[in-house]
């Protein structure tokens, strides 16, 4: 068995500690160690984006991140977006625009889109498409996801979102 190490990090705003194996991925730690199942396993290879989380404010594929490398860092998963104004605007828009069908890609899309709006507050459709180029969806054909992202950006700019 792998040796384990103890790490400390901030998860969704709360400090915590975890004991992880050397080769454990952040995705495994979150789903199995911590028990937060919102972040999904889609491929384990960084090709589908279903496992997207925020690390120190940047979106990354948690399946490619060694859990040990979370030490000292700030991790945000989809569960931790609840208080974020951008995420709330996105959630409202995703629902209103029909951007959710089976919903499996949705947590990854939400996290990635939240990150986009943090760095580019008023994306147009082309920018939104490029931003989610690493998030695969098999159900929606992406149209409504892109519309929702654009609208969320507009709503935030207009101060509509609470």
């Amino acid at each position, binding site marked *: 068995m792998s040796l384990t190490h103890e790490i400390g990090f901030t998860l969704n705003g709360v400090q915590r500690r975890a004991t992880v194996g050397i080769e454990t991925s952040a995705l495994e730690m979150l*789903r199995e160690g911590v028990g937060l*199942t*919102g*972040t*999904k*396993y*889609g*491929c*384990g*290879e960084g*090709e*589908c984006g*279903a496992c997207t989380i925020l690390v120190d404010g940047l979106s990354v594929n948690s399946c490619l991140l060694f859990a040990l490398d979370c030490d000292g860092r700030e991790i945000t*998963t*989809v*569960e931790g*977006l*609840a208080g974020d104004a951008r995420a709330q605007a*996105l*959630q409202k828009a*995703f*629902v*209103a*625009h*029909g*951007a*959710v*069908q*089976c*919903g*499996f*890609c*949705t*947590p990854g899309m*939400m996290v990635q889109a939240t990150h986009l709006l943090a760095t580019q507050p008023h994306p147009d459709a*082309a920018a*939104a*498409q*490029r931003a*989610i*180029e*690493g*998030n*695969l*969806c*098999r*159900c*929606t*054909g*992406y*149209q*409504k*996801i*892109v519309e929702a992202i654009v609208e969320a950006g507009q709503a935030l700019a207009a101060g509509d979102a609470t």
Partner: protein
Amino acid sequence: MNETLARPTSAASLIGQRIPKMDAPEKASGRTRYIHDIDLPGQLHAAILRSTRVHARIVRIDTAAARALPGVHCVLTAADVPDQRPIGVAKDHLPLKRDRVRSERDEIAAVAADSEAVALAALKLIEVEYEDLPVVADAEAALAPGAALVHPPIAGAAAGAPVGLAGKTDNIAMRFDYGHGDVARGEAESDVVIEDVFELHYVTHCCMGVSGVIAEFDAKGNLLLYSNTQVPFLHKREFAEILGMDPGRIRIIQPPIGGGFGSKLDIYPFEVICVFLARATGRPVKLVFSREEEFLASPTRQPVRLTLRSGCKGDGTLTFRSVHTLHDNGAYTSWGATTPFVMMQTFSSLYRVPHCDYHTVAVYSNNPYAGSFRGYGNLQATFAVEAHMDKMAEAIGMEPLAFRLKNAQAAGEVTGQGMVFRSCGFQDCLRSAAERSDFSRKRREYAARRDEPGAVKRGIGIASMLHVGGGAKIYPSDGCGTILKLDDFGHVTLITGASEIGQGSETVLSQLVCEELGLPMSAVTVVNNDTDITPWDVGVHASRTTFIAGNSAIGAARKAKAKILAAAATRFDCAPDALELNGGRIVRAATGEPLTELARFLRGLHFSDRAELVMTSFYYEPPSVHQDKAFKGDVSAAYAWAAQVVEVEVDTDTGVVRMIRVTAAHDVGRVLNRLGIEGQIEGGIVMGQGYALTENLVVEGGRIRNPNFRDYKLITAPEVPEMDIAFIESMDGEGPQGAKGVGEAPAICIAAATASAIYNATGVRITSLPFTPERVYRALHGALPPLRATPRMSTEAAQ
């Protein structure tokens, strides 16, 4: 329903509105628990050992070291389950392979352990000795004289035993032969006759949620299965048969699904194996695939090589189609082998064809097996039919749209296969898509520009499709049951047999019920995922759910409404038809004057002398018929059409084809949930785009070369075309509020329209898929190897 269609009685009608999906908020917050997210107390984790050889005898399996690994509870091989029965439509598929492996995905052993890590470690400790057998790498090789048999006869098998236990003496899995009219006569009457070979490739579903199952036997020996099956009631029956159990003691719960698209319509070894492990260990057992395993072990779309011979008269009238297809059945038979049921409908009935014959031979090989996949053979058939429509039009000098309109059926026609087109928006679809896309003018312009300098060419193509839209009567029943319960607070529980697979069925069913009962969407809770609670439904397939489950839900709602209004008529001293339900109230139909809150009235019914709860049930069986032995019959209660125009840009320096715009017109009968139906169309178009341009499961020598997203290319967001979608509302008389099914339609003719567009841009017809940059480039430079014609078999019907 065969009644006057309910017209909205107020401006607040829900029909045609944009209604958000009921489970969207939970999914967007990450709270939804899919099967991967469910853990039962005391559960064990399972893993399956798959073959490392493509075709081999299993000489020896040694599981001693695996059994001894700490944390391992159970290791099973076929030897441990001597009474296992074969599964699948041809009963040729033993879940745990005995004596030999026939494909790379074959399941040889399975482990249940305390954790996934231990289970995987145990797999590595299982020793298998193989003796290689010659690999039958494609269907044609399987037909060659002296070819190795994939299911050779098994000595000592009981008489009448299925193929999985007895083997057979050849490699033929299934045959289909169909005909209407007289093809020889049709050919004799033709002024133009063309023949081409088409090669349709392996693609796979790539649901974002990988396959998984949890099995648990309770203290009484009843089986509880958490399964993502799309056919829970059929599944119950299958498991009962396989396990030798009373089906009444099997309960299936369906967690939210991470995509279906037809991948979950059959019973697969991994589920049965998980049940074996649960039975052996007495613990709940959970099995989840890795993505690589998902690629390696999932059913694919049916690959097809087909030869199509078509003819028409000089005036543009179609005369005949003659089709021979070779289906690579893979090592075991799943639904892919039955795609001819759908394919022959397209060849016989997409456009008016007086004479048609169709022949399929499905042949065993050591390749992956194919299953059902959105469109179910129709993508493959339409690709060929529409290529010939283009070619024949050009041969007689007729404009492609005019040629199609001339042969497109109208309402009231009956096809040679006996399909009755009641509501039919076929011609409207063609005109709508062509007009909005400026098809005819662009077609001429782009053709004229072909020889101009410049590497990047534009092209535009059109194709149409026909698919069942009112169910498909292939099982003994094509029906669905609904139970409706109204409580004291005006809240409705809608209990339906129809599953939600992400397509929005629970939202549209709620919408239909709310429309009948005059209630807001927030008044409904849907229960649809537990076979102990829900009434029977055959399953989510054939684009049937809105139509059939919708009519079932409306039936139950109308019964509830009748009950309520009958009681209200007594209370308000009028006739029941003088009353209506609207805005959560009972109102006077003529004036809209509110009489009482519905909830209050229901409480009154309950707590009065009547002591009556409003609970109703309704089972809807569509008025379609089973096909006869010649495959003829009106198999669906309604049919749906679509036309799609695809505009592309072809870079002749690289072969890259960019899909610029899709202009679609879909005959959906009536739009119910505008948001939901748009989502289905958009998603289907992009799935069709992947089939046409980028997706290719590379199978060589029986091995999948690209079992990952790095090299199996799904369409990503920046690649999607602009979409302009119109709905043709042909108001089907039998459909719920006039609606017809649409789930598969949008994926079906994209590849055909793309082929047409590439031809328009470059003058090159490509008859094999996908149109990857290299394939297109090779075609442009005459460097694509020619396709061999489909082998002909003698046409005695197989029974």
